[in-house]
């Protein structure tokens, strides 16, 4: 662990955004993760995305569970709200928080252990309920924090450092999320920020449940030659199927693409995205055809990355259950608590 504070000095020519901040203003405390951990790159990508989006830090709620990955919410946006929940319980806490205050931007960071083992049920229901949040799973195929046990996303073919095999098949969080009704599903690699940063931005813009499964190598416990989540393996088996570009606000979409290979989507908040197909058989807007293709990649040992699924209806939990349009802290006390007469009236209606 690094003992010094990260120096405050920054490059004198570092770019500023229109609110006068630099990328470094979106950082948190210095990471205590192992040197070279993929999670730190994801943190850097989040910082970059927030800087480019000029997100006001006080409008963000960072949610996480337990694990090396879950620790990272401390390493960015140190002026945001944050909640570090019990292991695997982040989706429920995020759901509750979101119901109470729908106006914040919810950014959940979890790990494959936190999500696909202890938190599996929680995760499934948050997806199913379409909680409006970006859920980033920093997936390294292992329980990093507890010293390298196999996680549920570890591939059958992937042995641990000592050569031990796992008898179980891996859970694919993306497939699962598509099936359960997530509106935005993507997979990325921590070592490719050119791909990851636009995905994070789009996921933050998206209304509804957005998942990015980021393959994020654990250098300490899962970066050996027989791992399918090592830097080398991911680099050699990375197949981008759908590319997502965010179109800057001021610019119109003018570039010409071959017909049928790209789709332009305007999100509820006006953000414009362009999806380009890199695999012609793959259509990220159609879950039915997409799932078998993803399965095929997986069986070949390839990692399909990019935007995997997008539902442009952008529905979220509040739409589905018809909650109040305001955050609860803006609803006055009388409305929040209509009193015993109102309760009696409701009870009467059920008699």
């Amino acid at each position, binding site marked *: 662990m690094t003992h010094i504070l990260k120096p405050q000095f*920054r*490059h004198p*020519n570092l770019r500023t955004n229109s609110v006068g901040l630099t990328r470094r203003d979106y950082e948190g405390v210095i990471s205590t993760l192992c*040197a070279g951990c993929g999670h730190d790159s994801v943190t*850097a990508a989040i910082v970059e995305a927030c800087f480019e989006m000029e997100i006001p830090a006080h409008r963000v709620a960072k949610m996480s569970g337990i694990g090396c990955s879950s620790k990272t919410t401390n390493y960015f946006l140190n002026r945001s709200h944050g909640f570090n929940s019990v292991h695997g319980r982040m989706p429920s806490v995020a759901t509750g928080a979101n119901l109470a205050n729908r106006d914040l931007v919810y950014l959940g960071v979890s790990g494959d252990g936190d999500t696909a083992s202890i938190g599996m049920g929680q995760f499934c229901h948050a997806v199913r309920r379409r909680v409006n949040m970006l859920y980033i799973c920093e997936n390294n195929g292992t329980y990093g924090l507890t010293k390298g046990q196999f996680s549920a996303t570890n591939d059958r073919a992937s042995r641990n450092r000592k050569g031990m095999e796992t008898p179980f098949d891996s859970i694919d969080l993306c497939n699962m999320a598509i099936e359960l009704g997530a509106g935005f599903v993507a997979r990325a690699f*921590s070592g490719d920020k050119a791909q990851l940063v636009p995905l994070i931005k789009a996921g933050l813009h998206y209304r509804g449940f957005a998942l990015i499964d980021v393959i994020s190598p654990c250098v300490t416990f899962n970066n050996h030659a027989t791992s399918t989540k090592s830097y080398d393996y991911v680099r050699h088996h990375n197949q981008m199927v759908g590319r997502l570009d965010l179109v800057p606000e001021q610019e119109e979409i003018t570039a010409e693409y071959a017909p049928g290979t790209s789709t332009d989507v305007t999100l509820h908040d006006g953000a414009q995205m362009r999806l380009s197909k890199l695999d012609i058989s793959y259509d990220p807007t159609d879950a039915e055809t997409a799932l078998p293709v993803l399965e095929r990649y997986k069986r070949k040992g390839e990692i399909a990355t990019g935007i995997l699924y997008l539902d442009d209806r952008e529905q979220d939990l509040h739409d589905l259950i018809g909650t109040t349009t305001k955050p609860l802290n803006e609803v006055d006390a009388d409305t929040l608590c209509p009193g015993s007469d109102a309760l009696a009236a409701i009870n009467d209606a059920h008699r």
Partner: protein
Amino acid sequence: MEKTDISDPSYFHKVVDCQWACPAHTPVPAYIRLIAHGRYTEAFMINWESNVFPGILGRTCDRPCEPACRRGRIEEKPVAICRLKRVAADNRGPVDHLMPAIPTVKNGKRVALIGAGPASLTVARDLMPLGYDVTLIERDPQGGGLMRKNIPSFRLPVAVLDEEVGRVLDMGLTTRFGAEVTSMKSVLDEGFDAVFVGTGAPRGKDLRAPGRDEAAANIHIGTDFLSSVAFKHIETIGKRVVVIGGGNTAMDCCRTALRLGAESVTVTVRSPCEDMKASDWEIEDAEREGIPILDNHSPKEFVVEDGKLTAVVFERMRAEYTDGRRKLIPTGEPDVVVECDDVLMAVGQENAFPWIERDIGIEFNEWEQPQVDKDTFQSTRPGVFFGGDAAWGPENIIWAVAHGHQAAISIDLHCQGEDLMRRPAPHVNLASQKMGIHEWAYDNDISNDKRRIVPHVDPALSLRDLSMEVELGFDAQQAVDEAMRCLNCDIQTVFSDNLCIECDACMDICPVDCINFTQNADEPDLREDLRVPAMNHEQALYVSGDLNTGRVMVKDEDVCLHCGLCAERCPTGAWDMQKFLFVDAKALPIPPQEQSDAA
């Protein structure tokens, strides 16, 4: 771009901005670290080895290192390098036992040095330990050159000067003080194996204007005036003094006049203030003492009444710049009359050699300047060398020292019958600073402090005493605080491309966005493409060989803090922090360098 060749000593040397900028290539960060640890004696010795006069230079150096200092590119002010040097000199312990031994049996070669300024003294310092028989010939009664006669004692106490000049003289040179050389031929006739001319640029320039001759009794050439004060031939001056000129000599003249009892002193400069030649800090010191500087004032006439100077008339000027060249044009405003009793003329100096015969093989150019080789310092007559201000006109002490080192190398090669162009290589060394996983042999925590200001004595006291040193120097705590501002630019980031797994950890952590993983390209494109474009073309790009993904690592050296975080975050040790030691070659054998943990 090609992969950077870090085995070329100049690559890392250039990264150490201060050392690269120092004419004598003093290993600055090494001694700054020693000062931070209170190891003043070692810090002094590093300086003495490189620049011979740490106490003198710690007060008076022109400090080309400071504008070059990397710290000045990440915040307002560079490290106070020069004043830290003084701390080492002022607080050191005994050093006599650390001085090189002087052979009692000489090597049989005799060398004459003409002039006893810093250039000649450096030659002597470098040659004496090799067994040369050195004769120093000086017009003045004491050694030191302009350091003694022109730099006022309120900037450079005589005791400091005596000590550091004495340290060289004590090596056992033969000295002939009070012996002006009036014929080079006669020196050559004495049969020396080599002669070094270190006579400086002794002639102060004059300025012709109506009334100049009539007022001669009250118009003094600045450098002559300062010498006369130094040697106590002048002890008073008129009540109202005008100093003409905007260089450091003018600043020394005006402050000296004030201390001799002048009631009003005015400095006048032809050009705008921004163009003044004097160092900023010297101007500040003069202004702090309440001396007004009138800029854009060009002397037009000396007014003489009843045979005595009464005033100087100035024409108002303004500067116009075309293609970067300045022209001073009269504004047409009414002339300015400044009444005065004495004028000090500080408008420049030149070297002059009326005493060198023109038929002895020493060629001079059309401006009567000797032809001197830039690398060997040899004149057109083999065995006759020039250095310091005598070679190419007025510079400063540290350049005189640097010339002296090079001339000494040449003299040694010449006397040993070797080719002067076969210059010895510098001594270089790279040593890992890794002590533990995240522990380094140097303090990599970066101080956010602003530059410390050197305290001054109360002006009420110093303005009354010509020899009272104005600057007090840093105390121990101030020195530590200031030393901690140094970025340790000699602790190099060394990259091994074969170890890199391209995890981006170093790029992500780097506080100043030095590190990039990108497609290789030609230098101009590469500079544009970096995370923060590398627009400081003086600073190198460190480019790796091809990595596994076909990309390269490109580090812009410009504002690297040498914080070591890249190496701390690297899982494979592809980055390492390594101390780069560069000691320029000298005739004097390089003493074994201490591999101490602090330096």
